[in-house]
């Protein structure tokens, strides 16, 4: 048990019901050796944040395909802050146009994986940022 297991929450805030991408992502993260918690669809930002806190995850991966990301994703960051856990990484995925990337980062999203990226990019990012940090400690 000594080796560090990364815990990741895959969250779907907003009303988007398309969960193929989220489920494929959850499975790919599992196969990368992470413990993956999935919230299911139609979550409020507060639901996602409380889940992240209770599960003590390292990373929250948000997915939304409806274009609500600009409003909804920053609310998750806020809710995490309210609960004293804004140290948890928050990643944004979905149909996110390039011009929104900086806007999301300004609002506390750590990285954006928009069109043209896939689970592999997210896995690598998590390995670097979460496990890399561990090595440096």
């Amino acid at each position, binding site marked *: 048990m000594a080796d560090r297991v990364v815990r990741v929450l895959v969250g779907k805030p907003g009303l988007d019901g398309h969960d*193929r991408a989220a489920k494929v992502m959850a499975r790919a993260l599992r196969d990368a050796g992470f413990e993956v918690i999935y919230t299911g669809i139609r979550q409020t930002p507060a639901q996602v944040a409380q889940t992240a806190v209770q599960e003590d995850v390292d990373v929250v991966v948000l997915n939304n395909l409806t274009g609500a990301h600009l409003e909804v994703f920053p609310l998750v960051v806020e809710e995490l802050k309210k609960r004293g856990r804004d140290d948890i990484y928050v990643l944004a995925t979905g149909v996110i146009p390039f011009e929104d990337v900086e806007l999301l980062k300004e609002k506390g999203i750590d990285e954006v994986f928009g069109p043209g990226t896939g689970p592999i990019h997210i896995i690598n990012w998590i390995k670097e940022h979460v496990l890399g940090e561990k090595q440096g400690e």
Partner: protein
Amino acid sequence: MEDRKKILQVKEDWLSTDYAKFVAKVPERKHPFMLDSGIEINPLYTPADLDEDWSYLERLGFPGRYPFTRGVYPTMYRGRFWTMRQYAGFGTAEESNQRFKYLLEQGQTGLSVAFDLPTQLGYDSDHDLAVGEVGKVGVAIDSVEDMHVLFDGIPLDKVSTSMTINAPAAILLAMYIVVAEEKGIDRKVLRGTIQNDILKEYVARGTYIFPPRPSMRLIADTIMFCAEEVPKWNPISISGYHIRESGSTAVQEIAFTLGDAIEYVKTVIEKGMDVDKFAARLSFFFASHNNFFEEIAKFRAARRVWAKIMKEKFGAQNPKSMMLRFHTQTAGSTLTAQQPLNNIVRVAIQALAAVIGGTQSLHTNSYDEALSLPTEESVTVALRTQQIIAYESGVADVIDGIGGSYYVEKLTDEIEKKVWEYLDKIEKMGGMVPAIEEGYIQQEITDAAYQYYKAVADGEKVVVGVNKFVDPNEDLTKFHLHRADPTVREKQVKKLKELREKRDNQKVRKLLDDLRKAAEDENTNLMPYIIEAVRARATLGEITDVLREVFGEYRPPVIF
């Protein structure tokens, strides 16, 4: 086929000599060649590869005749092209109305309405859960007033309108009827479609509200109401599109869609309506994907299986009840953000497969969809793609031009066989509702989706511009993106407030109460009650809330 033996002999000889020698020199690209549906592709098909008892008259027959393999109409596109119908709608009703008028001017022949998610889930725009979603993936409709704006200046007695709406479909149909009637148009002449297919929402698209059983009742109510009152309306569009888009194979797409359809037919028959009274108005909606021959064979197989189901299982007499009429959309999930212009080509190939496969209407995707909402330019290119296929390619001048291709006929047979295997299994589980409640369907789709993902991730499946022929200098930032108006929610909230002040609230309360009582009695058709509530300006959210109270809300099983 009198020369079957001879052909097999010569084929065997060819395989062991010419073919084998060549393979020894230049090995084949794959071992084996497979379709995602799990069907192995042989190097070559001959008449002798068809089943020994293969009969032209039994398996193909003639267009417009059972089993409709070659098409549902006697002349197909020699008479009239398929309906070119582009899905549109975003922001406010005013904006969508303008887009509709633009598309009609461009030569589009039918309207297709996309609704935003709060509308699809039966929430008014001022609901807490609507934050960030109002007007995002479609138009926001809160009451019949918004519907009036949406169809302002559009002759509802002349156009046909397709509405992508499911859980609250009965309410949106009621709004359409009320709008027409308030314009002085009889509901009997209205033409169009509501999607109204809840079962695929549980397995693929996610916009369910109520549990399966009360949802099935609502659907039966709309089907039966339309059969009597709105005879030219398609009260349901049983959809494989979203099942396919959520990662299923072509075989699963057809099997699960027809499985859903069987469930709807059963439900209405159990309510006491004769199958021939409503079955002719059932319509279908499929995806057209990349594998050209597989897709064509899929459409042909679907027609044949459905005809058999209706004739043999449900005892339909009217040939129209046995016809599988369908809308097709090209596969959004195949579009790539990288090198987006390539998507025009993908869409063209997929659209061609749909037309050769005999579709009744078609939506072609816009090439920039993987990036964001399509622009006017990209929507136009998509429509032009259909027009080029219709007017320039010549494929529309003959009926089922690919019929008789040994490969396509064999594939049609094999897909049909696999579809029946699934349908038998589902029937043993007690039908689609138990199969969904137990998560069987969801698991099958999720597994297929993950396999596809892994095949692309491992490079086994090539996606041009993504895992091969990648442009290292590509700049994904240069595209102009349409952004929905961020103030739509404010506007809708304001309109709602005004509406609630203006209308006769006492009357609304009474009509909602009537609706509640009607909902509690399973044998009462809810459509007339919903229409009266809509006419009195009850909102979508208010009506849905009444039904939520009576029916409860659906919670999905946990499937990865």
